[in-house]
């Protein structure tokens, strides 16, 4: 393809691409993101591809390899358009039947359809699956329309139209006004108004300015940024271009975790394609706007999600945050004014420009506009990526979309990763937006939602996050490095049966000190998991301290494993599975656990098919 010299070139290209796509009677869409691949999507693709060429259907049907659609639980899946027929958990062996029946005669294979676990009903159309039906998919919907490696697909669905619109007739001030009017707030967690950030950077003195896309998604339990970058990287690049135009930046960086190799690869490819078309580089679309983007790989440090640490890392330095008494919009990367936004924030920009701020502001609540993607995971039936309008209640997300827990009652939900907190089921009526969750002692964060049930010990969860933060703290300031390790010391005492009530008070005091005095935002929010579990699950702490008992049966020093002689049938699975050789017994006879050797890892309980291992 030739370089696009003016906006009309882009329009002409779009028209010709759309004409090309009309040639196919059927699109077979197979998602192939990181999680899809883990479930074996590549083998399915190969099998379907081979089958199509075997039956000579290449001219009629278009095999479209896309990014993840979000319903990770049911992968690998296949979607047929038109028709919206969705098959779930497809195996390579199904390929022949699929191509013969569904592709050949339009026949639906009943056994591959999604089964609603509540009603047992088979659902034909993807849009009718409860998981998708209850969502409001604005960003994620494009994932099934584009091949992340093909800029043509993005252009065909209207991509880079917002950039053309901006360059043709919207001045930077007008763009900023539009973004401000839309009420878009940063999706990375802090929720700073995006338009204001751009304006401050624009007004900051200096000619050399930068924009950065923060794709260092370190929050465990959140992966919407990975999905967006992997599935539709051009939307993010387009957002960055518009932001750069508004803020007056000439250079941009995408800082992406090295743990996301596919996202790195797709983003790199997207940048090269955009350069080849002249959408990046000098005089974009014949305007006086010149801008380029580079990829910076993160090195595996959670703290680099903090803006100043991230900028240090882009500069090739150790990712230690610096005090933010001067904001990064004035002195950021190389001490130049810098706009840093999260992946999802950038991805929202093109549609706001194309559809107008009113369209965006019509969704969501008073303080939080638009839609937000959440990663719904943990002990819940439907796991995956969920996009809903801001202000949807936790209950709606967990029960209507997530389908509640399989078996045990849902006890709590963890939102916002290590900076957020745990909310109990009694708080599930809360609308999910920036302000309500913050008031309840948690935060929306980047959008991770981990569901927990009765078998999750909340003190253990607090310990888990403290351990995470102790390892991931940069170690620069005393409250975060020493304070968090002291908090972990206390919580470890509690989970090992040495805790006292005085220690719980000390824990609270220490948490408050860290929250007020730590150097960076991550340090200041580090005590949140402890504070929120103390606030809502104080009784669990007291059970550990007063009764030396772990109600969920998780904290090892406080529990004991034994075999229920009624249920054990002597199959020997536990004997083989115990890595510490603590279980003995002859075949067909009741086995026994040697309490001396048992390290209480619980592997036997997980492996036993007859529920014969008891915890008390």
């Amino acid at each position: 393809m030739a370089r696009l010299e003016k906006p009309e070139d882009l329009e002409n290209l779009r028209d010709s691409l759309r004409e090309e796509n009309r040639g196919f009677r059927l699109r077979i869409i197979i998602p192939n993101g990181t999680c899809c691949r883990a479930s074996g999507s590549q083998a399915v693709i190969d099998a379907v591809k081979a089958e199509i060429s075997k039956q000579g259907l290449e001219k009629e049907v278009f095999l479209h390899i896309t990014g993840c659609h979000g319903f990770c639980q049911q992968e690998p899946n296949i979607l047929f358009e038109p028709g919206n027929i969705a098959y779930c958990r497809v195996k390579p062996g199904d390929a022949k039947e699929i191509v013969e029946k569904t592709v050949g005669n339009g026949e639906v294979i009943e056994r591959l359809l999604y089964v609603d676990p509540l009603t047992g009903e088979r659902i034909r159309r993807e849009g009718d699956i409860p998981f998708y039906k209850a969502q409001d998919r604005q960003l994620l919907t494009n994932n099934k329309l584009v091949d992340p490696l093909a800029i043509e697909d993005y252009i065909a669905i209207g991509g880079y139209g917002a950039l053309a619109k901006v360059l043709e007739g919207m001045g930077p001030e007008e763009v900023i006004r539009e973004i401000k009017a839309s009420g878009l707030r940063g999706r990375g967690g802090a929720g700073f108004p995006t338009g204001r950030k751009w304006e401050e950077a624009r007004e900051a003195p200096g000619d050399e300015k930068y924009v950065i896309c923060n794709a260092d998604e370190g929050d465990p339990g959140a992966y919407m940024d990975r999905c967006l970058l992997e599935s539709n990287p051009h939307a993010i690049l387009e957002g960055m271009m518009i932001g750069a135009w508004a803020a007056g930046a000439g250079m941009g960086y995408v800082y992406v975790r090295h743990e996301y190799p596919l996202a790195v690869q797709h983003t790199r490819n997207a940048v090269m394609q955009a350069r080849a078309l002249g959408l990046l580089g000098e005089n974009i679309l014949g305007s006086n706007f010149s801008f380029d983007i580079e990829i910076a790989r993160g090195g595996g440090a959670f703290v680099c999600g903090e803006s100043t640490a991230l900028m240090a890392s882009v500069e090739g330095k150790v990712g230690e945050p610096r005090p933010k008494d001067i904001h990064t919009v004035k002195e950021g990367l190389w001490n130049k004014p810098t706009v840093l936004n999260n992946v999802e924030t950038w991805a929202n920009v093109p549609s706001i420009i194309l559809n107008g701020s009113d369209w965006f502001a019509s969704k969501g609540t008073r303080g939080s506009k638009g839609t937000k993607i959440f990663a719904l995971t943990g002990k819940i039936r439907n796991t995956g990526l969920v996009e809903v309008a801001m202000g949807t209640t936790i209950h709606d997300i967990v029960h209507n979309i997530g389908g509640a827990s399989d078996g045990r009652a849902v006890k709590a939900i963890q939102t916002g990763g290590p900076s957020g907190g745990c909310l109990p089921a009694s708080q599930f009526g809360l609308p999910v937006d920036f302000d309500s969750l913050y008031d309840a002692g948690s935060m929306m964060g980047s959008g991770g939602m981990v569901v927990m049930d009765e078998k999750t010990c909340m003190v253990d969860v607090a310990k888990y996050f403290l351990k995470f933060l102790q390892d991931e703290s940069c170690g620069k300031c005393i409250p975060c490095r020493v304070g968090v390790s002291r908090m972990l010391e206390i919580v470890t005492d509690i989970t090992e049966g040495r805790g006292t009530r005085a220690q719980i008070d000390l824990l609270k005091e220490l948490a408050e000190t860290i929250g007020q005095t730590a150097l960076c935002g991550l340090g200041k929010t580090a005590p949140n998991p402890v504070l929120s579990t103390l606030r809502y699950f104080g009784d669990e702490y007291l059970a550990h301290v007063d009764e030396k008992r772990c109600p969920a049966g998780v904290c090892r020093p406080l529990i004991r494993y034994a075999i229920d002689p009624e249920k054990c049938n002597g199959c020997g699975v536990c004997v083989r599975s115990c890595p510490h050789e603590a279980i003995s017994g002859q075949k067909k006879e009741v086995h026994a656990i040697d309490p001396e050797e048992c390290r209480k890892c619980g592997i036997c309980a997980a492996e036993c098919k007859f529920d014969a291992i008891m915890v008390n």
Partner: protein
Amino acid sequence: MQQQVTLTIDGSTIRAARGTSVLEAALGYGICIPHLCHVPGLKDTGACRLCIVENVQNGRSRVTTSCTLTVQEGMVIRTNTENIKRLRRNIAELIVAEAPNSRAVQDMAVRCGVREVRYPFRRENCIQCGRCVRYCTEMWRANALGFIGRGKDRKVDFAFGNRRDICKKCQSCVIYCPMSVTPCGGPMKPGEEKLCGKCESVELMAENAYGACVHCELGKGFQCSRHAM
């Protein structure tokens, strides 16, 4: 001529050169803000967090370190509110529990109001204030010492742990280390986490390390009653 700004610290109106930090401005007027990692002439990093103050803006006060905060016209700073005293005491308690046998740290903790330490002692001997590292890097540009690793495993070390050959043997790291004051063999024992505060090593510290005074650069801060509790 240097530009001056006017600000209020603890109710006193003071003037300071534009660009100086609140901590330096305060110390210049004899207003004691306890500090540990600050060394005159080196870049401030805000690592020890002892010099926290409240910065009052539009009726709302924000806790921040005074060493990294530059003076601004009309700024209102409070260095000694109840909240600040409590937070500072908690931080000092964390620090002294890391290095219970350092006399300089003990003195600092006593002056911040710590009497009893609620954490079991760790004998780290290094609290990572970074004085040595910054002196080595900024003053000598030797880059022999540096912070290695992160989180709880972070430590001060040579490159590869053994590249002493890069060191210029200036000894500044020793001079500036708050641990190099003769340790107290006294009452700091595990199980009896108490600070007696009887042996404030006033002269010793002032002689050994300029700026190591954790209280007041005038050296008279020890008699100053501002932070006594």
